[in-house]
């Protein structure tokens, strides 16, 4: 009887038993669309709100500050060490986590407690629309999720096309000044730079966010120096007046959060990045 039910439910994944792939493991199947979701990453909270599943979101990790209503959600602690007791007390039937944020041991612990955990990758530009769609299926908001994902993909395709054959400008993205941490081509910011026609002077490196050398940046003479708020000590680059980026005042601070979170607003970050690239490109070439 039980077996028959199991076979039946797995046999019809298109019905109201959503099954979606997840990072590093078996696909996740829910018996029914989730009604009580807890988000363990700020960008996943943004996704839940974007696809209209806010009424099904019962808790979120700290720093879930967008949209403003998300701040009112009960907190389950910091993303790297969520408070398991509070999380369980919220009685979630789905926990959405980010592989780059949640420690694997935490995820295992949550699964061991019998919770359905959906682990997302969130590493590439293309992960965002795919995960929006999957989240739509998991929460029963597939049509709205499809709209948001489509809008993201269309805008990304438009930006990519618009910058495809333009002169590449060289750029460097500073994540942290001390030690100097940047992004490689593997990071979604690095991929966004490529879409906007920015040649990342870091290129392929070990890992997505390598620690980099200041003199290598000076030697590469980037035309564009980028960072995100709080942009601490960013103006120190100004002493290198031989850099094209400094001479043409192309030290650009990107809008807060949008480019750092692999969520639905990432496309706004890509657009801002492309605008910065366009400004750098319009300057006289050296």
């Amino acid at each position, binding site marked *: 009887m039980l077996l028959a039910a199991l076979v039946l439910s797995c046999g019809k994944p298109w019905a109201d038993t959503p099954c979606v792939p997840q990072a590093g493991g078996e696909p996740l199947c829910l018996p029914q669309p989730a009604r009580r979701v807890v988000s363990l990453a700020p960008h996943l909270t943004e996704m839940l709100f974007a696809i209209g599943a806010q009424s099904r979101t019962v808790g979120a990790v700290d720093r879930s500050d967008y949209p403003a209503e998300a701040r009112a959600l009960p907190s389950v602690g910091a993303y790297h060490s969520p408070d398991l007791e509070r999380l369980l007390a919220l009685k979630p039937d789905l926990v959405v986590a980010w592989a780059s944020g949640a420690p694997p041991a935490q995820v295992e612990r949550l699964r061991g407690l019998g919770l359905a955990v959906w682990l997302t990758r969130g590493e590439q530009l293309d992960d965002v629309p795919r995960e929006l769609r999957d989240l739509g299926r998991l929460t029963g908001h597939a049509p709205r999720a499809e709209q948001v994902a489509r809008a993201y993909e269309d805008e990304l395709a438009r930006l990519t096309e618009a910058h495809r054959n333009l002169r590449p400008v060289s750029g460097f993205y500073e*994540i942290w000044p001390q030690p100097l941490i940047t992004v490689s081509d593997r990071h979604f910011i690095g991929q966004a730079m490529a879409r906007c026609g920015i040649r990342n002077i*870091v290129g392929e490196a070990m890992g997505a966010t390598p620690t*980099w*050398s*200041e003199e290598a940046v*000076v*030697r590469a003479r980037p035309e564009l120096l980028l960072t995100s708020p*709080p942009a601490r000590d960013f103006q120190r680059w100004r002493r290198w007046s031989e850099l094209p980026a400094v001479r043409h005042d192309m030290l650009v601070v990107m809008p807060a959060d949008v480019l750092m979170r692999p969520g639905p607003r990432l496309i706004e970050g890509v657009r801002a990045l492309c605008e910065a690239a366009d400004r750098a490109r319009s300057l006289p070439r050296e």
Partner: protein
Amino acid sequence: MNSRANRTGRHVVSLALLLAATGLILLASLLLGSAGWIWPDSPGWATDRRIMLELRLPRVLAAFAAGGLLGLAGALIQVLTRNPLADPYILGISGGAATGALLAILLGLPVLLQHASASLGALGALLLVIALAHGEGAWTRHRLLLTGVVLAAALGALITLMLALAPETALRGMLFWLMGDLSGAPAPWFALGGLALLILLTLPWARDLNILTRGEASALSLGVAVRELRWGSYLIAALATALAVITAGSIGFVGLLAPHLARLLVGADHRLALPGAVLLGGSLVMLADLLARTLIAPQQLPAGALLALIGAPLFLALLYRPSGVGRGA
């Protein structure tokens, strides 16, 4: 008598060779970096000159100063504790500096305030140790050091706590600081000046330190002002440690290794061993930083981690050499 003079002569030659080696490492550190070799008057020299003088030179000098200060502090601490395994970090000063620096990183303060916060932390730890050791009760030989050891342990727990609470972005900055990293070293002139001053203050005591290594009783009977010597050495070691840690973070191992290597190369006489420890400490940190900057350039490694990787096998080789370590201590 003749063989003793011979030995001293050999040790002076060793010290001179050490000085030459230090100079060579310094030169190599200026010419070589993550952007490759730089030769004067090559194409692009205008920018390369600035890379050499504004990026590499301050960093290399800071590396030398930090290593030299730790070598000096380590040599003094090993005499004070009469323990060949003692290193400057048992004073508790570095724990204070680390707490200050990590707190500043956690709060997201700019680099300049990080250094200020580290200095305050080091000073606070030093004053705390002295105040506690000066309190009620009998002053024993080990009281000062024990206070430092316990304080270091407590601060270590505080540091672990901060690491556990830190967000991902700040974490790498904090780990680099703890392993020792010279990429954010402040202007080296303060540390270099401090090193020069402290070594000048210490050298006149070198003979008394030699006597102190043979035991306190014999030092007292030979008319050495043991109490003043101990306090003075402690203060100088503490100041040297504080300056080094503020400059380069808590680089490990060099404070332990440099004095031992120095004794092996230039003998146990502190008139030579102290400058030897300074030169060796400085060269080791310069070398580790050179490797950190160039091994997988332009990606960067923390110098402290490399120093421990070079230092550990070197130290073990020393330890298992017949009549090796601990002879002079």
